[in-house]
C-alpha cells in the first residue's frame, strides 16, 4: 500500500467508522467528531508523504484492474484545499452542530464527501471520474438539506437533487458517446483519439453536465439556495471545494479532448464573462449575508474560468497556474467568510434557538461585540474583493498578468472587464465591513450571545492563512505551479 493509494482510500474506509463511533454511545455523538479529526490527521500525514514523493519522482500512479488513480499536480492542489477546509470545518462544527439531530451522520458524510473529492481529483479513467463525482453528489444531498425540518432547506435540497441528477445524466451520456466512438475510457488514450464531431458533442454534454455543479450561469439556480440553507460548515465546503471539484473534473475531460483546445477556451472565456457579471449584479441585490456570499462564488468561478480559458485559448502557462492559485485562495477566503458569517449567525440567532437568516442589517455594530468574527469576515470579504495585500489580490493579479502576456486584444479587454468587475464587487463587500464597524448596534447584536472558543480559534487559523498567502504568495507556489504545468501537459502545449 503506497501512501498515495492510502490517501485516497483512507477517508472512504474511515467514514463508516466515524459514523459508528458516534452511534456506539448515543449520549456522546461528539465521538464521531473526534474520529473525523483523527482520520483527517492521518490523511494529512499521508498527504505530506505523497507530496514529498511527488516532488521527487513526479506523478504517482496506482493501477487497480484497468483503472488508474494518478496523483499529479492538480490532484495535490485539490487535495490540499479539501483537507484544509475539511479540517477547519470539523474543528469549527463543535458547538455549531452540537445537539443537532444526526450529528454523527454530518461528520461521516463530510469525510465521505472529502474522500470523494480527493478521488475525483486523482481519477484518470473517464467513467471512474463520474463515479467519484456521483459519490460526492450523493454524500452532499443530506448535508445540503441537513435542517430537513425547515421548509427552505427542503426546497434547496429538492432543487439541488433534481438539477445535479440531470447534470450527472448528461455527463454519463457524454461518457457513453466517447466510449462508443473511441472504445477507450482512459483519459490519456483519449487525448490521442484526434478530432471528430462526436467528441465535440460529448464535450458539450460535459460542459453542461459538470456546469450544473460548477454553477455556470444559466445552470446556477440551485447554488444560492443550497449555500444559504446548509449549515455554515457545509456552505464552506460547497463553495470552497465542491464547485471547484466540478471544475477540475471538467478541466480533466475537456483537457483530454484537447485536439480542439482553442474552441473550449472560447467557451470557458464566454462563461467566465457571464459568471463574473451576473454573480456581481445578483450579489448587489442581496440582503442576507450567506446568499450574498453564495452569489459572489458565481463571480469567483468566473475568475478561475478566465485563467483556465486563457490557458486553453492562448496556451499561457501562467493562466493555468493563476486559475489554480485563485481556486486555492478562493477556497480559503470564501471558507473564512462563510465560517465567520456562521459564527455571527450562531451568536446572533442559533444560540437563541432561532433559525432566522443573518441579514446585512443584523451585522450593524458587530465589530464591538464580536471583534474577532467581524475582523475575520472583513479580511475575507476584502480579500475576495481583491484588495492588496490579501490573498485574493495576488491570485487575481496572476490571472490578469497572464491575460496581458498573450498580447491578444480580446483577452486584454476581458482582463480589463474582470478588473472592473472586481471593483464592482467592492460595492457589496465594503458596505458589509462598514456596517460591522458602526457605532449603533442592531437589536440582534445587543441580544447576541458569545461565540464559542472553538469557532474563534478556527477563524484565527484561517485568517492567518489568508493574510500569510497574501503577503508571501510563494508559500503555495509548490502547489499551484505543478498544477498549472500538469494542465498544460494535458493540453499538449
Amino acid at each position, binding site marked *: 500500500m503506497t501512501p498515495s493509494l492510502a490517501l485516497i482510500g483512507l477517508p472512504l474506509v474511515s467514514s463508516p467508522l466515524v459514523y459508528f463511533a458516534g452511534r456506539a454511545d448515543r449520549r456522546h455523538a461528539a465521538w464521531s467528531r473526534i474520529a473525523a479529526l483523527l482520520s483527517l490527521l492521518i490523511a494529512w500525514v499521508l498527504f505530506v508523504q505523497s507530496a514529498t514523493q511527488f516532488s521527487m519522482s513526479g506523478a504517482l500512479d496506482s493501477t487497480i484492474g484497468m483503472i488508474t488513480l494518478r496523483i499529479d499536480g492538480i490532484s495535490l492542489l485539490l487535495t490540499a484545499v479539501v483537507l484544509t477546509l475539511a479540517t477547519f470545518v470539523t474543528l469549527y462544527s463543535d458547538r455549531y452542530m452540537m445537539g443537532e439531530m444526526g450529528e454523527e451522520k454530518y461528520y461521516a458524510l463530510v469525510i465521505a464527501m472529502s474522500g470523494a473529492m480527493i478521488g475525483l481529483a486523482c481519477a484518470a479513467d473517464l*467513467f471512474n471520474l463520474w*463515479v467519484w463525482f*456521483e*459519490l460526492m*453528489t*450523493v454524500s452532499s*444531498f*443530506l448535508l445540503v*438539506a441537513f435542517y*430537513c*425540518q*425547515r*421548509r427552505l432547506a*427542503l*426546497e434547496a*435540497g*429538492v*432543487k439541488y*437533487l*433534481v438539477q445535479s*441528477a*440531470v447534470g*450527472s*445524466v448528461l455527463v*454519463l*451520456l457524454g*461518457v*457513453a*458517446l466517447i*466510449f*462508443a466512438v473511441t*472504445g477507450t475510457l482512459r483519459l490519456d488514450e483519449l487525448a490521442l483519439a484526434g478530432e471528430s464531431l462526436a467528441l465535440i458533442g460529448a464535450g458539450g454534454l460535459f460542459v453542461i453536465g459538470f456546469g450544473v455543479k460548477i454553477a455556470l450561469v444559466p445552470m446556477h*439556480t440551485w447554488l444560492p*439556495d443550497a449555500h444559504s440553507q446548509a449549515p455554515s460548515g457545509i456552505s464552506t465546503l460547497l463553495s470552497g471545494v465542491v464547485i471547484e471539484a466540478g471544475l477540475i473534473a471538467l478541466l480533466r475531460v475537456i483537457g483530454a479532448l484537447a485536439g480542439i483546445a482553442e474552441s473550449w477556451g472560447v467557451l470557458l472565456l464566454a462563461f467566465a464573462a457571464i459568471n463574473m457579471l451576473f454573480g456581481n449584479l445578483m450579489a448587489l441585490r442581496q440582503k442576507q449575508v450567506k446568499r450574498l456570499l453564495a452569489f459572489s462564488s458565481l463571480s469567483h468561478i468566473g475568475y478561475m474560468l478566465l485563467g483556465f480559458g486563457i490557458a486553453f485559448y492562448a496556451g499561457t502557462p501562467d493562466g493555468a497556474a493563476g486559475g489554480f492559485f485563485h481556486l486555492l485562495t478562493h477556497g480559503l477566503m470564501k471558507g473564512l467568510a462563510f465560517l465567520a458569517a456562521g459564527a455571527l449567525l450562531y451568536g446572533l440567532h442559533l444560540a437563541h434557538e432561532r433559525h432566522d437568516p443573518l441579514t446585512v442589517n443584523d451585522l450593524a455594530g458587530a465589530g464591538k461585540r464580536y471583534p474577532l468574527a467581524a475582523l475575520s469576515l472583513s479580511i475575507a470579504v476584502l480579500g475576495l474583493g481583491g484588495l492588496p495585500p490579501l490573498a485574493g489580490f495576488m491570485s487575481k493579479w496572476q490571472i490578469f498578468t497572464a491575460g496581458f502576456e498573450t498580447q491578444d486584444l480580446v483577452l486584454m479587454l476581458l482582463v480589463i472587464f474582470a478588473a472592473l468587475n472586481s471593483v464592482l464587487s467592492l460595492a457589496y463587500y465594503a458596505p458589509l465591513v462598514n456596517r460591522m464597524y458602526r457605532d449603533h448596534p442592531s437589536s440582534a447584536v445587543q441580544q447576541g450571545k458569545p461565540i464559542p472558543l472553538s469557532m474563534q480559534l478556527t477563524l484565527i487559523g484561517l485568517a492567518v492563512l489568508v493574510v500569510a498567502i497574501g503577503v508571501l504568495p510563494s508559500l503555495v507556489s509548490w502547489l499551484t505551479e505543478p498544477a498549472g504545468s500538469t494542465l498544460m501537459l494535458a493540453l499538449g502545449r
Partner: protein
Amino acid sequence: MTGTILVIGVLALIGVGLYGMMILHNVLKLVVALQILTKAAALALVAAGYMNGQLQLGQSLALTVIVADTMVAVVGLALAVQVRRHFGTLDTRALSTLKR
C-alpha cells in the same frame, strides 16, 4: 443499422425524460422523470459496449450506473416524503421559488 436504431431509442428516451423534467411540478413525478433519464443512460452504456465490441465492459459500467442512480432516487423519495410532511403538498409551485 442496429447501432443507429439504438442511438435513436436512447435519444427518444432522453427527450421524454427531459420533457417530463420541464413540465412536471410534482416532486415525486420529477423523480420518475429522473429515473427515465438514468435508464436511458444505462441503456446508452450497454449500447456503446455492444457497438464497439466491449459488451462486458459496457455491462459493468451500466451496473454501477444503476446502483448509483437508484441511491439518488431513494434520497429523492425521502426528500419527497419530507416535502409532503412539511408543505402539505408535493407541488413544486408551493415550494414557491423554484423558478427564480
